[in-house]
């Protein structure tokens, strides 16, 4: 199938913690639970490794959505990492919203290693949301396009 040029193909970066969500994505894979190829996963040891800088950089480079997945609160492999991530992301997302960036472009979802189905549905939902929002123009750095 030739993808039409006019069709919007979002760029979506998914940061997944190694212990739960990356494994959840693996399970989605081995269970053949499809989600759009627009999603590209970056493996991080823990959701608390994700620096707001990474997220802004992704947007700067033309990402249309960024999602962070980690272990469920209480189940962090490092005990407390996702609690810090939760605070950081809450504040960051609120700030982006305050700056007028569409608040559906960022999301945090807790996905355990056993939740392949949840991983897949989350990604499908998120990609649908990004389709709804269209291309990211507010955060993109035009110089980086090309």
């Amino acid at each position, binding site marked *: 199938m030739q993808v039409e040029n006019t069709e919007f193909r979002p760029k979506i970066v998914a940061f997944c913690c190694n212990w739960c969500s990356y494994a959840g994505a693996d399970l989605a894979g081995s269970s053949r639970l499809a989600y759009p190829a627009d999603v590209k996963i970056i493996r991080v040891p823990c959701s608390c490794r994700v620096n*707001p*800088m990474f997220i*802004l*950089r992704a947007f*700067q480079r033309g990402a249309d959505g960024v999602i962070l997945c980690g272990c469920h*609160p*209480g189940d962090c492999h490092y005990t*407390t990492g996702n*609690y*810090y991530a*939760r*605070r*950081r*992301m*809450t*504040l*960051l*997302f*609120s*700030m*982006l*919203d*305050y*700056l*007028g*960036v*569409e*608040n*559906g472009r*960022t*999301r*945090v979802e807790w996905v355990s290693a056993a939740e392949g189905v949840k991983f897949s549905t989350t990604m499908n939902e998120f990609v649908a949301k990004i389709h709804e929002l269209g291309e990211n123009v*507010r*955060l*993109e*750095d*035009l*110089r980086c396009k090309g």
Partner: protein
Amino acid sequence: MQGLIERAKELLADGTVAQVLGWRKGDMGYDPEPAYFKSEEELKDFVYDAFCGANLSKYMIEAAKLEGKTLVFLKPCDTYSFNQLIKEHRVDRDKTYIIGVGCQGTLKPEKIREAGIKGIETVTIDGDTLKFDTIYGAKEMPFADALLERCKVCKGKKHMVYDELIGAAEDEEAGPVGNRFEEVEKLEAMSPEERFAFWQEQLSKCIRCNACRNVCPACSCRKCVFDSNQYDTSQKANAATFEEQMFHIIRAFHVAGRCTDCGECSRVCPQGIPLHLLNRKFIKDIDSFYGEYQAGADTDSRGPLTNFTFEDVEPSIVQTRGGGH
């Protein structure tokens, strides 16, 4: 003011302190600047009035490396910054002698200019009135009209840390004045498009002079992450808007939970960008999500970003609460 100079002289004379950090008269009467005073002689240029807006806390990082103790004059809101720096091990309390000075609000010279008063030779503060001798003759304006934005919502007249107080307000316990989140709330009530347009306009004015960074007592890194080669962010030309957004978002994020809301960033911005509105947004969110927190009110509590509770709100609250509340 004379009392301050006298006391400074005494402390220099009896060897309690080796130098004094205060404000030196400028050329115009409304442009004093931070300065060290090593002797009685130098102290004749010392000044303290409503134009001494500069927060001296951050200078104490360097002062900690000097020989001997340093006497520093801190206004009530400056003491929050100093406390925060103690918490972060950046200043040396043992090498500091703090005189807490009273403050009736500090002024913004631009407002005087905007009021059409130019060619100023001297300024005197007479109660609620500012009196000017200008080359065009005597002029005056209400004191309140020249106040810095930050001082209109003063967070209180109490000093958080000091060795002695001189000229402190009698109503020390009086609480904050005004609602400091009013402007933030106004922005929050706008549509995302309006907010985006607002910030686009504001942040595009940025010339990356780094004045905000240099003055900010929380932005006290020895070497800024934006000067690091790790992030490929170091000192770029301002060819597109994102760089500024990124810089200011990250800057605000890095001081979130540490910013005392001293307002120095907006005071020094040559482009008049209301940078404090970024910091205050974080403060407002922190207060509403995690409970009231005032950075610098103490020296040992955990900041909101180095703390958590099991029941913290989920990031999705940003979507579900709707609007920008």
